[in-house]
């Protein structure tokens, strides 16, 4: 069994943390883990309003006490009124609590400058990946020959590729252009689709905007399943799992091109927009695929099949543990929608607290509300922190020889390119690791920083990258950059 890059790193990190706990002497006293998109783990504080409302929903006695601001109590009361039996412990309707679903549709309409959104097209799920899997289940015929194909960006977070392959489909990679800041180019989509001829039956295009950077070729070994098990009664395939790279925000023109492309080629469009809340490039603005589609008018706006995904895990709320997300489905055949409903109903419903977290994300306190001042301060702080982190990461990383970092306009990660000296690549080969994994292991051992290697997401042959989360406290970011600088300088010297 081939080892997963991430597993190797994670395991070593656990060991090191254990060693530190037992008092081992190292050049650092704790491990900084920025390998996941998990802001709370990295020291970012949750938003008070969100937690207060959730707590009051859980323990309604708080609703009547005056320990909490009035608007918190009112919101909790309103939400509890929507729950069967007045409790978040009851099952809800399959697609989610009706009033929350309504409010999601209102949020979408507001966000998209008036383009109408209908509640019947929205399903709340336990995280956006869960909704994505259900849609993929409908699209992918695991028994077909040739296999179903889904166009997927490179780099890409493997949760998606894992889902695709786990369902018996194939990934058709298209490379984002690193030199153009990880831009998506339609010519590349054309090429990818051509390459699929005779190999598989493409049914969908998966895009993620704001992005996770992608770019480069994926070598065949990185796309084949890593494990095959056989046991007395069971056998199956397993693929690795990893995470998203960095933040490019698509321009309107590019989105339009993609829409025309899928229309022409009759592909289903899967738009993963979970990072829409994290935009900080000065000239960048998030525009949803739905909005662009609606503004392109008929016939496209009535025919292109689109699924847009969003979640409460990303953005300033960062409530990854709550598991709240949704999918909005556009232009699907009504009969197909019935089956989608069935798939969602298999799990009864999304976790109620996740649904509530979602509601709080799309309907935050407004000016005039008692909680608004604190909410505003907290979100501004997070925004300032992110902008600061992005700038610092960009500056510091680009100042190090051998690193080249594209500007990050949105999302939660930096994905700089690493030019490793030939001696380092050689050494990596000797120990049986990918070069960027080798770099990451060394960084972990010597500097106590856990990041992820670019090979986990796919990259152009012969290029290497690292990825780390920038949604951390400013203090942590400074420390991270300091350790990285120190380590990197030494590393480059050692392998020159």
């Amino acid at each position, binding site marked *: *069994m081939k080892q997963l890059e991430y597993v190797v790193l994670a395991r070593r990190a656990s060991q090191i943390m254990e060693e530190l706990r037992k008092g081992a002497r190292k050049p650092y006293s704790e491990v900084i883990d920025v390998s996941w998109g*998990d802001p*709370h*783990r990295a020291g970012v504080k*949750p938003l008070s309003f969100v*937690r207060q409302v*959730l*707590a*009051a929903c859980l*323990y309604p006695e*708080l609703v009547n006490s005056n320990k909490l601001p009035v608007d918190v109590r009112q919101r909790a009361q309103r939400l509890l009124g929507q729950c*069967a*039996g007045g*409790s*978040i*412990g*009851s*099952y*809800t*309707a399959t697609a989610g609590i*009706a009033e929350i679903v309504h409010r999601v549709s209102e949020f979408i309409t507001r966000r998209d400058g008036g383009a109408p959104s209908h509640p019947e097209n929205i399903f709340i799920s*336990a*995280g956006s*990946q869960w909704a994505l*899997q259900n849609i993929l289940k*409908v699209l*992918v*015929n695991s028994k077909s020959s040739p296999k179903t194909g889904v166009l997927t960006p490179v780099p890409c977070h493997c*949760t998606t590729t*894992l889902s695709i392959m*786990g369902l018996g489909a194939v990934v058709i990679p298209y490379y984002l252009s690193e030199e153009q800041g990880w831009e998506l180019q339609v010519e590349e989509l054309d090429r990818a689709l051509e390459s699929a001829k005779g190999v598989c039956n493409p049914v969908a295009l998966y895009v993620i905007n704001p992005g996770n950077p992608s770019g480069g070729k994926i070598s065949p070994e990185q796309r084949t399943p890593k*494990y095959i*098990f056989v*046991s007395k*009664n*069971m056998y*199956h395939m*397993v693929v*690795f*799992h990893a995470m998203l790279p960095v933040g490019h925000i698509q321009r309107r023109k590019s989105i339009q091109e993609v829409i025309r492309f899928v229309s022409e080629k009759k592909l*289903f469009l899967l738009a993963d927009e979970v990072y829409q809340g994290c935009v900080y490039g000065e000239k960048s603005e998030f525009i949803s695929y739905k909005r662009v589609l609606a503004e392109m008018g008929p016939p496209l706006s009535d025919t292109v099949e689109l699924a847009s995904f969003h979640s409460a895990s990303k953005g300033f*709320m960062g*409530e*990854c*543990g*709550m*598991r709240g997300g949704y999918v909005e489905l556009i232009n699907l*055949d009504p*009969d*197909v929608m019935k*089956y989608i409903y069935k*798939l969602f*109903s*298999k*799990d*009864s419903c*999304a976790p*109620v*607290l*996740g649904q509530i977290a979602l509601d709080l994300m799309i309907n935050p306190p407004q000016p005039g509300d008692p909680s608004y001042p604190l909410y505003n301060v907290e979100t501004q702080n997070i925004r300032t922190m992110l902008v600061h982190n992005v700038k610092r990461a960009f500056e510091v990383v680009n100042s190090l020889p051998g690193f080249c970092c594209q500007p990050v306009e949105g999302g939660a990660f930096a994905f700089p390119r690493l030019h490793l000296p030939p001696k380092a690549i050689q050494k990596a080969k000797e120990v049986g690791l990918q070069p960027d994994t080798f770099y990451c292991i060394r960084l972990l051992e010597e500097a106590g920083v856990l990041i992820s290697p670019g090979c986990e997401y796919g990259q152009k042959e012969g290029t290497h990258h690292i990825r780390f989360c920038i949604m951390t406290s400013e203090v942590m970011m400074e420390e991270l950059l300091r350790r990285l600088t120190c380590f990197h300088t030494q590393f480059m010297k050692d392998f020159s």
Partner: protein
Amino acid sequence: MSSVQEMNPRVRGIRATVSLQSLAARLTEEIMQGAKKPFKKVTDVSSGDPQRAGMSPISFVRQVLAVCLYPQLLKEKSLPLDVRQRAQKLLGSCGGGSVGSYSKTSCGIPHVHKSVAEFITRRDGGVSSHPENIIFSSGSQKTLSLVLHLMASGEGETQTGVLTPVPCPHTLPMLLDETGVALMPYQLMEGRGWALDLDELHQALKTARGRCEPRAIYISNPGNPTGHVQDRKTMEEVIRFAATEGLVLLAEEVYQDSVFGQGREFLSYKKVLFEMGKKYSETVELISFNSISSASMGECGLRGGYMEVINMDPAVNNYLRSMQGTSSPPVLPQLALEVMVNPPSPGDPSYETYTQEIRRTLTTLSQNAQRACEFLNDLPGMNCQPAMAGVFLYPSLHLPPQMIEEAKMLGVEADVLYCQRFLEEEGVCLGSGCENGQEDQNYHIRLCVLAPPATLEEVLARLRSFHLLQLGRFP
């Protein structure tokens, strides 16, 4: 993909469900808009959802969760000390001290695994349980779905099959369809309180072998919806059967905390297995499922469950753990699970209240089950086996032939028609037996009896009047 024809055939093949939820939703909408009906609101007793029906959650659980969510409450003196201490401990086990972080591993929070393992060991009189064998997810259905996914393969005669009880939990058939696994029924013996019969099991396996590749046997104990609690002898026979025939045992044990029948006791399959000696305890592959949707917790909306995997190939175990990677289990339900398996101890400030609340829930359940069973047995054309555990009653219905005819003409099962009418005329949503599986024309209804007694009385009263009317309509 623009039409149903282009859809994944397996999804297309998911059986049509009967769900009355949309009808219930429509009626609720109509009432909200002022329509006059013989009922003020829709009462849904078709799922095991006690809080929906008005039962209260356990205070200690909710208090701890609230503090975990909003740690400022750690300083709140009006909350019992043990609540605050527990919350502190649990927060310590979360990344960044926040329930908003992803779980440390894709199978859940290690501290919680440990607590669950300890609970299982205590429950099973010392039979040890290892944290690495415990995997979480959002509800026991989800963990089961992972396992089925692993087993599923083949088509036609080589399709994987699972021996499934009739009746079974109403969400199971859809799950099997969706994972591409064949449902191979074995009848439970209604006349014997829904006991499991070994001969029937053997017969079912024989039939199954002709049609597919049976790989597992699914057991629900205490039974959902039957309320039957298996005795040790039966369980040993099942284990021997599984061992001889090379089947994986899937034991759904969610209602283990709700045994109220006289002289009955819940034994876990794990415990019985281990007490049968090495020949079985080291070879039989067993997966046990549990969740916080149990009778005493009733936290269905929180979506939390776990499975314990015994004697599986380590590679399979690894697979199950890594498959979780596509959807990280939610944190709060794991914390709720930790509280469920590790309740306040005697001497703790919350112990009294906690114990009282649990006792009250179980007493209500037991009394309701008894009352409802007697009541239903008094109705002509209804026959109810007494339940020993769980939250459902599952009486059989002898419907007038005209109703059966009418149903046939309308293209629905007669028990579905019955439930539809009942919902429209009395505003009460029951479950129909065809969701759980039944023999042809042997109709049943399913109702959750864990509700405030007044609610139950109203449901029963309405059921009687509706039922008699139906019989009167078709003499």
